[in-house]
């Protein structure tokens, strides 16, 4: 085992702020949706907008960070070990098999994570941001610039935004569960909080694979 500094301070800040904002957006958003009453409708709408703008600013910072640090390459999808990673979650994990992909500073994400996060970044979040902006500026041309779009009906905008919200919640549920599948249950959580993670070095890994074979 060796301790590696894997999540830098901005990355952690970005992650946790985004996590909080998404949670808060879900809470206020579903109140606006009429699912429950908590903050009061007007507050829910106002808070939702504040949180939405904050998230957009955060995303702009994050994009800048990804490109200046080259971290964007972490999200390039690969099919290499994709099957192995799926097999691991479906079978291997129950047999205490080792992770099929090794986490390093240069490759923090396994092939499944790469695809999932890429879809989030280039599909789900942009859809939510764009539909959200349409929702805010739709017809009520307080800023004026979106009046020219003249969307006939808020309904498709609202329904796409709602559907995206459900998808994000489902993602969060699975995501929160999957972080417990690290070396120990709390390994990944600690890493995202402190930045440091204990990563198995190669010798240990080889030993483990051998041991595993013996058990079989």
């Amino acid at each position, binding site marked *: 085992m060796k301790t590696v500094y894997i999540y830098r*301070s*901005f990355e952690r*800040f970005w992650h946790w*702020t985004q996590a909080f904002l998404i949670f808060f957006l879900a809470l206020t958003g579903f109140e*606006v*949706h*009429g699912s429950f*009453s908590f903050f*009061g*409708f*007007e507050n829910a*709408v*106002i808070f939702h*907008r*504040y949180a939405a*703008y*904050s998230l957009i*600013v*955060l995303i702009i*910072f994050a994009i800048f960070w990804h490109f200046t640090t080259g971290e964007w390459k972490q999200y390039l999808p690969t099919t290499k070990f994709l099957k192995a990673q799926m097999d691991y*979650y479906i079978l291997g*994990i*129950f*047999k*205490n098999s080792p992770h099929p992909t090794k986490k390093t500073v240069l490759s923090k994400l396994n092939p499944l994570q790469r695809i999932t996060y890429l879809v989030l970044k280039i599909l789900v979040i942009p859809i939510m941001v764009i539909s959200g902006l349409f929702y805010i500026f739709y*017809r*009520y*041309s*307080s800023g004026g610039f979106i009046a020219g779009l003249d969307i*006939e*009906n*808020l*309904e498709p905008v*609202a*329904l796409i935004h*709602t*559907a995206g*919200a*459900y*998808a994000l*919640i*489902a993602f969060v*549920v*699975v995501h929160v*569960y*999957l972080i*417990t*599948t690290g070396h120990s249950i709390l390994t990944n959580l600690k890493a995202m909080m402190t930045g440091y993670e204990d990563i198995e070095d190669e010798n240990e890994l080889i030993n483990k694979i051998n041991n595993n074979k013996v*058990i079989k």
Partner: protein
Amino acid sequence: MRKFIIVLSVTFVIILVAFSIFSDKTYRPTNAVVLKAKYSEKPAKVVDHSKFAVLQKDFQRPQDVTATCISCHNKRHIEVMQSSHWNWERPDYIEGKGIVYLGKKNIINNYCIGTQSNTKSCAKCHIGFDMKENGVSYTDSTNVDCLVCHDQSNSYLKGANLSGTPDPGVDLRKVAQSVGRPTRDNCGVCHFYGGGGNNIKHGDLDNTMFHPGREIDIHMDEAGPNLVCIDCHKTENHQIQGKVYSIATLNTERSNCEDCHTETPHKALILNEHTLKVACQTCHIPIYSKGTPTNLDWDWSTAGRLKDGEPYEEVDSLGNHVYKSIKGSFTFGKNIEPNYVWFNGTAGHYVRGDKIEDTTKAVVLNPLYGSYSDKNSKIIPVKIHTATQIFDPVTRMIILPNLYADNVGEGAFWKDFDWNIASEKGMKAVGLPYSGKYSFIKTEMYWPINHQVAPKEESLTCTNCHQRENSRLAGLNDFYLPGRDYSSIIDLLGFLLIIASFAGVLSHGFLRVYFANKQK
């Protein structure tokens, strides 16, 4: 430490940007201080008419008073004689019909139906004397009734069924010497009693507005701004601004809240955004008929029942007339939530003689036009008044019956209680055919609720409309309203997705624990 400062400054920038995006540049406050100052100075009476020599006499006829008025205020009568208060009609435009002269002269309403052939009675609310069916009185300037609008002695009274001539008991000298700027009393004496009694017609104009408190009308509150009708219904040369939507079909010369207030008067951006689609009245007049009950339904079909050959009336425990032999059955209500409709300022109108194609549903006498997709439309509150009116099933026209006559045997319904004769007489008077057969048909009128604005703490709140159940806008379904509307399919699929996610991770976690224990 360095990291901490970076994180802190980034957070700060994010919050700063978010706030700057939100700073509301649209908020243009109504200058309440300026308005209050303006309206706290009540117009002083600059002229004391009791000192004028020409008014120091006992007038025999009301026409003599008018002639005396004109002797100083020359040409003012011409202004009056150009007004719809005098002519009971004005040029208007109805889609499909073109320019039409609309007014009490020719309109059919949901109450006493029409003035024609009933002028003697209806003219009690005409600003003239001696109104005749043939219109002769319209050309005689001494028939202009200056006093009904300008009396400040509170003793002027129009006589019942006297064609607009004052009650014989009125002291014309006293009234003539008292004249001044019209107050709520002058307007209210007719407009609060439209439809034949207090608050029958409008629902937002009633006799509590002679001396209203804050709870009745925030603007007219006697202890507060104490506004009078003509403060909003601004008048130049006897042309009074603010046409009632139920009669006027064009969107001109309306009185609007925005005449004094700005279009974006709220501190909250989110409320100002609403003013594009929601009229001020919608939120600020949450209920109507606050002071006294208003008539909601008028059923003429039950009229004419007699007891021992005599007409009678029934009054309910609250003092409302629920039945009158001369008029039929009534339904009243108080503190009523308005209905809400889209309205772009233009309306249609049923004009006498129009044939009704579809007799299976209620005839809307004044359909208000507008829709969500119409840029000029806003949601407004209305009182929807329903009625059952007499109708000719052969000619398919609403019948204008002769209701009033001085004597029994002249054929008027209120004296003889015979629909057939009253219909024949009434339709003949307006030159329309009557087949000799009558039935009854449902009619509706839309009365926009514009008066009796509530104190701001009583305004509607978000969830009066933005809620799934009992939304005030439940009837307006041509748009997506957040909080009220949703797709049940998306909600179901979304719910199932989340359930499936939970089920998946829980079972996966359970298996992990199970196999881990097994391997120990």
